């Protein structure tokens, strides 16, 4: 069997679902970040001093892009996979010869479609508010894509272990959002007391935000290569956990 066929089938199906509800899929992130740009760029931006030598609105732009990439990738796959479990349409794939890794990858790529399209929309909006240059396009691309992949896979895991729609909202609200906001989206950790700088370094999202920011500004709170390794490791770990649970049929087979 040519595995590209089932893979593309799942990706197409997910993409159709995302674009069928495009307002819900893309607009919330775009609206929120536009508000951030208006408030921090125009309204109070002039009162905030530079951050690490950059205009404040320029400094926060990469973090805001990451914020929307992370949340949309994650919630898309978590919600989408849970829904197919809930409606039992996941059985369509389970009874077929499509291997588990294709099921996981197909959903993850679907999440990446939504995450990356949202990220691009946010970047387009940012053109109206920021004067940012590109320092290193490759670092931008690698961080952009890998972050989306990693959080899509994390969302898949959430969707698989969730038993209710509440379980889908729980982790984004109480774990993901705090970690993102404390991950240096709005500040460089160098402004924090030393103790909190150390604590911050245990937050994996700091590495994604900082690394991605490096691609634009050439400034980072962390070692960009180390950030890349962390991304790779987390992506691999989530993929492997998903493979193990899928093999068991966790939450699907009895």
């Amino acid at each position, binding site marked *: *069997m*040519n*595995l590209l*066929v*089932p893979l*593309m*089938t*799942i990706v*197409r*199906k997910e993409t*159709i679902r995302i674009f*069928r509800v495009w307002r819900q899929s893309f607009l919330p992130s775009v609206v929120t970040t536009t508000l951030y740009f208006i408030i921090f760029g125009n309204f109070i931006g002039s009162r905030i001093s530079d951050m690490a030598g950059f205009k404040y609105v320029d400094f926060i732009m990469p973090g805001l892009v990451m914020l929307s990439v992370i949340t949309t990738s994650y919630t898309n796959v978590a919600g989408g996979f849970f*829904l*197919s479990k809930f*409606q*039992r*349409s996941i*059985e*369509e*794939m*389970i*009874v*077929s*010869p*499509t*291997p588990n890794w294709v099921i996981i990858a197909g959903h993850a790529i679907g999440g990446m479609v939504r995450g990356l399209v949202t990220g691009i929309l946010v970047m387009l909006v940012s053109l109206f508010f920021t004067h940012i240059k590109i320092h290193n396009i490759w670092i931008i691309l690698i961080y952009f894509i890998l972050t989306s992949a990693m959080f899509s896979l994390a969302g898949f895991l959430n969707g698989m272990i969730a038993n209710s729609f509440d379980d889908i909202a729980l982790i984004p609200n109480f774990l993901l959002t705090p970690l993102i906001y404390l991950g240096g989206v709005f500040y460089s950790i160098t402004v924090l007391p030393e103790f909190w700088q150390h604590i911050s370094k245990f937050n994996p999202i700091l590495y994604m935000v900082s690394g991605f920011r490096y691609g634009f500004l050439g400034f980072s709170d962390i070692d960009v290569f180390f950030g890349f390794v962390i991304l790779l490791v987390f992506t691999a770990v989530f993929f492997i956990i998903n493979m193990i649970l899928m093999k068991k*049929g966790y939450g*699907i*087979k*009895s």
Partner: protein
Amino acid sequence: MDALNIENLTKTYANGVEAVKGVSISIPERSFYGLLGPNGAGKTTIIGIITDMVVKTSGRIKIFDKDIDKEFSDAKQLIGVVPQEMNFAIFEKVIDIVVQQAGYYGIAKKDAEKNAEKYLRQLGLWDKRDEQAKSLSGGMKRRLMIARALIHEPKLLILDEPTAGVDVELRRDMWSFLTRLNKSGTTIILTTHYLEEAEHLCKRIAIINKGMIIEDSSTKEIINKLDKQSYILDIASPMKKKPEMKGCNITIIDDTTIEIELDKSQNLSELMRLLDKEKITILSMRNKANRLEEMFIDLIENGKEGKEKGKRK
């Protein structure tokens, strides 16, 4: 070659329910096979195991000689399944549901669309292809699942209670569709708790109760084996004494009605003579309906007794 071969299958669910207790079945290629049993007998569990939805406790299953554990990809390619419960995404369009399913079997979109048209037309759903699945009626949803199961042209089609909740006329249509499909070479396994359905469609029937196969033979044999004819007789005056006759069982229903259950080997005119001797005037006589239904209950009851006797030992 067997289309399906099951050996010593058992399943104990996490909650301790023993749903399948050592089932062995072999179903020859091209046959139309019925798995008949009351609710909770374990039919859906067995199908779940064959189609990878339920994890078996022990046993071995082969589909056209392909072991589902060792050659799972090849085995799955040969099976199409119509589940008991609806399991499609209700907001998706009918055509998308069917074409996507083909994709999961590695069939490219173009070929999938051709097959989709063929089966949606045959099942009377072509006009509904662009509608969301949730807008379909119950019978249409069932047919959508049949089209979806056939999209990769499996050699073995398994249907779990396909006509439950489908009205009589549509049920007939579905029967003739399945019969044609079987004639064209597809092996069909169908579970049901309607006897009429099994009798009408299946050449061979396995009867399952409480996770065990209690009978597995040709439909004809099963009917012959247990064929007791039952008659309801309207009589002129109350019967005072029941006539004794081998292979015949008389039940007095009320003063003017009696029921007679007669072994097929017994002679009806013999019985008539006996009744005549008792001065019983027969006003009218009719066959009791649902003969097969009765037989079914009979079988299940026998199975139960057998098991309980076994326990007592």
